């Protein structure tokens, strides 16, 4: 599985992030956002298990895939169309722990949907995060459209779209890649392949090993990268982003990853995954692996680690406290914004 990684680790070595053009600050920022995504998620499960909130859907295990790829984009200028696991992506793009907790508790102040959608249905026009619903794979076509608009206005913004390997089975995925290929749109397709669509293993979803192989059928490159190697994710995405910004068209990046939790708080993954399998992947936790690297590189020292832990915990505590107290919508809110503009009929 450790495909591209090895090479990358070869070059660079202990100062690999610098050779990728990342300052120590940037490298640590990536680490902190991964930690924050994980911490918010863990807290949500805690609260859910205490019966204080009905639903969680997790990023745990996929933070490397998410933050590593998002870090190659320009938040607020570039666009992202994330899917429900992409806490790491939207935190990098400017959402906060508080925003997440507000949507977790479905409060009126939830910036994604004012408490209308389930947690994980991200969206913010201001932050250039395209709103997502529940139907999978639709966002790939939205991303192609966002990129088409950039091309029409001769802007060099890049649009990154995220989806699971299960969603790659949908017709929309095919139609989006085909369209982006034809028009050489500035889209980066990021497939987070965690091996399962809820309970359905990859072997029942496709007859191939790598979703990335399909890119050839659309006339653009496809690459496979180890999602537990956050710097490798950053490197391939940076190349894809540069290519897209140059006007050379899309890239399909398949990130091999794994979800540590059940599909959601409504799922029981013991029905379809072996405990050993989960355990073996937890061994490869992208956060621990990156922490080890940063320590070896001398970038992450104990005091810095403590600071980060302290900041992350404080954000999660404050966010939880704030959101749990925050007001709910009122029944009158039910009927607003069916349309942006109510016709005066």
């Amino acid at each position, binding site marked *: 599985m450790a495909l591209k990684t090895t090479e990358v680790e070869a070059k660079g070595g202990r100062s690999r992030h610098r050779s990728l053009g990342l300052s120590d600050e940037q490298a640590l920022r990536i680490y902190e956002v991964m930690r924050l995504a994980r911490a918010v998620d863990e807290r949500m499960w805690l609260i859910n298990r205490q019966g204080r909130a009905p639903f969680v859907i997790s990023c745990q295990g996929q933070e490397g895939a998410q933050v590593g790829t998002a870090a190659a984009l320009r938040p607020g200028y570039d666009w992202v169309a994330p899917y429900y696991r992409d806490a790491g992506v939207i935190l990098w793009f400017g959402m906060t722990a508080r925003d997440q907790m507000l949507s977790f508790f*479905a409060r009126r102040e939830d910036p994604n949907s004012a408490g209308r959608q389930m947690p994980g249905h991200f969206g913010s026009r201001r932050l250039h995060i395209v709103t997502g619903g529940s139907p*999978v794979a639709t966002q790939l076509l939205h991303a192609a459209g966002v990129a088409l608009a950039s091309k029409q206005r001769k802007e060099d913004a890049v649009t990154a779209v995220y989806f699971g390997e299960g969603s790659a089975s949908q*017709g929309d995925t095919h139609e989006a890649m085909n369209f982006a290929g034809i028009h050489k749109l500035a889209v980066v397709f990021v497939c987070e392949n965690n091996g399962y669509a809820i309970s359905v293993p990859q072997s029942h979803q496709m007859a191939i090993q790598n979703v990335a192989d399909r890119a050839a059928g659309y006339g653009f490159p496809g690459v496979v990268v180890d999602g537990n190697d956050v710097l490798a994710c950053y490197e391939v995405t940076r190349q894809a982003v540069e290519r897209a910004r140059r006007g050379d068209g899309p890239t399909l990046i398949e990130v091999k990853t794994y979800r540590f939790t059940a599909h959601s708080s409504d799922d029981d993954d013991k029905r379809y995954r072996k405990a050993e399998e989960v355990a073996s992947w937890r061994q490869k936790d992208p956060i621990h692996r990156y922490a080890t690297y940063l320590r070896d590189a001398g970038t992450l020292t104990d005091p810095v680690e403590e600071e980060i832990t302290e900041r992350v915990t404080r954000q999660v505590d404050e966010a939880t406290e704030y959101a749990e107290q925050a007001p709910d919508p009122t029944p009158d809110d039910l009927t607003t914004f069916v349309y942006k503009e109510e016709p005066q009929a």
Partner: protein
Amino acid sequence: MAVKTVLEAIREGMDEEMARDPSVFLIGEDVGNRGGVFLATDGLYKKYGELRVIDSPLAESCIVGVAIGAAVNGMRPIAEIQFADFIAPAMNQIIEEAARFCYRTAGDFNLPMVIRAPWGGGVHGALYHSQSIEATFAHIPGLKVVAPGTPADAKGLLKAAIRDPDPVLYLEHKRTYRLVKGEVPDGDRVVPIGKADVKREGKDLSLIAYGLMLTYCLEVAEKLAAEGVSAEVLDLRTIKPIDQAAIVATARKTGKVLVVHEDNRFAGIAAEVMAIIMENAFDSLDAPVMRFTGPDVPAMPFNHILEEAFMPSVEKILVKAKELAAS
């Protein structure tokens, strides 16, 4: 005769039909090992194997399109759509293909297939795990649409659907899965498609409903009785072809009708029921037919206050029913 939940009745219905007819098979997302996200197919994968319980890729058009082809070639597929809210990717295969196969070949081809879809709200499912889809599909000629509300009807109509030579959209209300329990006759009992059922006799007014709303309307009738109002409750059970005779009969009998559904109001099933009564029982009406439905907003929000604001409830229906009784 034993008491079962709607979910148990559905699982049993599939199990019995699969045991009875080797051409019956299941295809859908997570229907195998996982037993379905609601466990409706729990145990069937072990019992019937991977050729008859197929975990499909995550692609609804594929699920339905493949079911169509299998039905062409002698099988009787049961296609499961994980949530009714995710049926739209299969819309082309359902309304342009499945619904029109028989007509466009003047009967040379017919499709004995069932599309099962868990629907409805009140389960904290938010916009995309709460939708009602009956009006959208009932409008399409060539489809049959059923929406049982009790365990006995759930099992009997599922058997009828599986044995039917035409495509049947079988709607199972998620909230009723475990909430609604009832006696289920033993043995091979089939409930005919196209027949409504008077679940409670009454003379002052009629409540017409289906799915979860049936349970609510029966409670409403109980409360009305306590106040001396005798309400008849007609369970449509089949949405298409609708039981016009039963609708007209109850309208003529009581002269006052309240139609209830969760689905959005505009051009919903209630409108059709009102049109049928307008055309066939106008002179027997003592008051205009009323409807109590979900509002015209896109399904239920996640927040519980908004969800409650959307969902019809016994209390809300009762208010409307009293208004009708008093009119």
